[in-house]
């Protein structure tokens, strides 16, 4: 094409068109973010949902509140709006809290509190999450904070302010002394030793392990954990693969695993899609060994990605939402309110919502919203039940912390047979504790 000189007027028109396309894209993105962070106002059982357009993602927030309540209990939430596990958490809170408020609120010491949840996008990075936490503490003046994997970045702020935080984070740093007001409610820390211990005890022929994890922070941590557990149980990791996050074709990886001659294959931290694709590739490559996942594998979510024949025989903890005997009462309540709000239960992860269940149990037991008294209740070894299962708060002597701070899960171990879980073992807290005692040298 032969060019010609461009006039200032034409330049402005072209720049305008390009800017409009870009602006429309960004605006659309902001609209979507705003819709994700929709403001939900619940008042006397009536729910109104209005979309708010966020000016920037870092300040986008959503509020679930009851305007009629005289003194709402303010709970701050730090999450990453673009992270699927956190979107699941956000959706579950958006379903649970309005339903709780509609039923009269949370009864603490005989007083019904309406609950207001204020969410901010911490993006799982230091800058955004710290500023969001500062805003929660100084502007919103929340009573409690539910945190995520970004807790390391802002924990000094909350500890200094004596702000009670319940986080779901596998980082051991947040549980180390002198931290006293931070608790961990997820199952990533203390469930692996229990699940792997049970599997190893009942499969003494398993000596060689093949493991694949995403090559990111958590994947590397899981790879180290797998090695540690193997050592405890007299096994050897004969094949360890760290694949780039986003890998879709696992065929060659599966061939390498099959050729390794391992007795068992394990994977986690890749998310449902990657884990499911790995199992499928392994199945297609002719894997004859055992499968074990020490973090709960969801048959429902996995089956949405690949046919269940690909993970037939896997041994794994079972979430309370997927028990073969039917979900527990707490799990069923979540499924019901979630289905009522979003139309269907699509097997979202219940990892992060555990922090709400721990806080709820602590508040109900303490009978007060005084953070120190609530912390004292948790420090006393509080037991709580979530949509995932039953947990008990325990100390972490391996981290030098003799204060109760982490969640120990009384897991239900199952095995997938004909595409459905069958229960192998309902573990007690003592049994789960003993497996961890052995693995973590408590």
């Amino acid at each position, binding site marked *: 094409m032969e060019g010609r000189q461009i006039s200032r007027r034409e330049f402005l028109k*072209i720049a305008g*068109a390009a800017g409009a396309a870009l602006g*429309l894209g960004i605006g659309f993105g902001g609209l979507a973010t705003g819709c994700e962070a929709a403001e939900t106002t619940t008042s006397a059982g009536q729910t109104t949902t209005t979309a708010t357009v966020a000016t920037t993602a870092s300040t986008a927030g959503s509020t679930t509140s009851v305007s009629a309540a005289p003194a709402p209990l303010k709970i701050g939430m730090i999450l990453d709006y*673009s992270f699927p596990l956190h979107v699941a958490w956000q959706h579950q809170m958006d379903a649970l809290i309005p339903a709780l408020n509609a039923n009269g609120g949370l009864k603490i010491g005989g007083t019904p509190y309406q609950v207001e949840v204020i969410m901010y996008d911490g993006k799982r990075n230091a800058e955004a999450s710290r500023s969001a936490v500062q805003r929660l503490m100084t502007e919103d003046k929340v009573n409690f904070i539910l945190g995520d994997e970004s807790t390391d970045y802002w924990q000094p702020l909350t500890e200094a302010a004596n702000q009670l935080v319940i986080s779901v984070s596998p980082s051991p740093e947040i549980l180390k002394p002198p931290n006293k007001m931070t608790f961990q409610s997820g199952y990533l820390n203390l469930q692996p030793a229990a699940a792997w211990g049970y599997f190893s005890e009942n499969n003494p022929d398993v000596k060689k392990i093949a493991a694949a994890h995403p090559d990111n922070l958590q994947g590397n941590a899981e790879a180290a954990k797998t090695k540690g557990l193997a050592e405890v149980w007299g096994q050897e990791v004969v094949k360890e693969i760290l694949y780039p996050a986003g890998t879709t*074709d696992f065929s*060659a990886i599966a061939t390498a695993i099959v050729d390794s001659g391992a007795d068992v294959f394990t994977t986690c931290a890749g998310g449902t899609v990657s884990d499911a694709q790995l199992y499928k590739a392994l199945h297609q490559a002719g894997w004859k060994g055992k499968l074990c996942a020490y973090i709960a594998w969801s048959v429902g979510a996995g089956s949405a990605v690949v046919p269940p024949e690909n993970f037939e025989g896997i041994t794994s903890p079972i979430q309370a939402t997927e028990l073969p005997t039917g979900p527990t009462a707490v799990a069923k309540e979540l499924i019901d309110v979630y289905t009522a709000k979003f139309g269907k239960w699509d097997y979202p992860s219940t990892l992060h919502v555990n922090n709400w269940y721990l806080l709820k149990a602590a508040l109900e037991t303490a009978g007060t919203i005084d953070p120190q008294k609530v912390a004292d209740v948790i420090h006393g070894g509080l037991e709580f039940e979530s949509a995932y299962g039953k947990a008990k708060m325990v100390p972490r002597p391996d981290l030098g912390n003799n204060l109760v701070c982490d969640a120990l899960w009384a897991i239900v171990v199952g095995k997938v047979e004909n595409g459905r879980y069958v229960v192998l073992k309902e573990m007690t807290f003592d049994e789960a504790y003993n497996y961890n005692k052995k693995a973590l040298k408590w």
Partner: protein
Amino acid sequence: MGRTLVQLFIDGLSMGLVYVLMSSGFNLVIAVPNIIFIAFGEFYMLGAFVVWYVQVPAGLSYFIAVPAAVIITAILGGLSYLLVFRPLQFRRNQFLTNIIAGVGLMLILGQAALMMFGTEARGVPSLVSKVCEVLGVRISLEKVVVILLSVVVLAALHFVLRRTRTGRAMRAVSFRPDVAALQGVNADRMFLVAMILGCALAGFAGAVMAPIFGVDLGMAENGFLVMLVVMLGGIGSMPGAILGGLVFGMTLSYGQYFIGSGESQILFFAVILAILLFKPGGILGKNIEEIGHV
């Protein structure tokens, strides 16, 4: 070891051919209307989501789902050209403007998909889930289907570009739009056709991969890998797209097995870098100043 090498070859071939399809589509868009189409990966992702939607919620056949994916992505590609790129197309020095417009389109399509489909991954029932074993080599029939479909579509594309009036017109426009116009070729229409064909190829690639790898929003990130494949094979070169796609598939397959998963991607980048040092336009491509030869 012989069995493993053959196994890895088949794995690499099926993966590589999908990138060949996408690279061919990307090449059409870059060579004919000269658009560095940043949003290309979104069309791959949308093709996969259409297949999921038609097959799972709508409960229709895969044989309806694939044409639906191709048609919808083709229409979206055409609309993208008419609404976003055409106003910029016949003006001079619009390289950066095109890229910015493409980024805007990428954000629009990505966020629209997020709002429509949500963040969770989805599976698509496989047409043929069986695996057959030949001399110890396990061959997944769904991969055989991908290989065959890809070869048929590539042959059809070759036929269209070489043997049809439209194909010849597109090639003429890719050389010199002004000279082609003197011969009665409507360059604007050829730009539109190239966009439609290119996006349809991306949609088709997404459609055939959906049953194998599932469907999620992250699929759009493959668009950047396609750009690398095109750079390796040669920007604007169809044989280069085939070569680049196959080199990519084989590098990943053999690399994942022998040197590790992450390392194989580094190896691929190293191969691209080494080739571009000596052949700045890619293995079979022209230098960047001469882009525009299908």
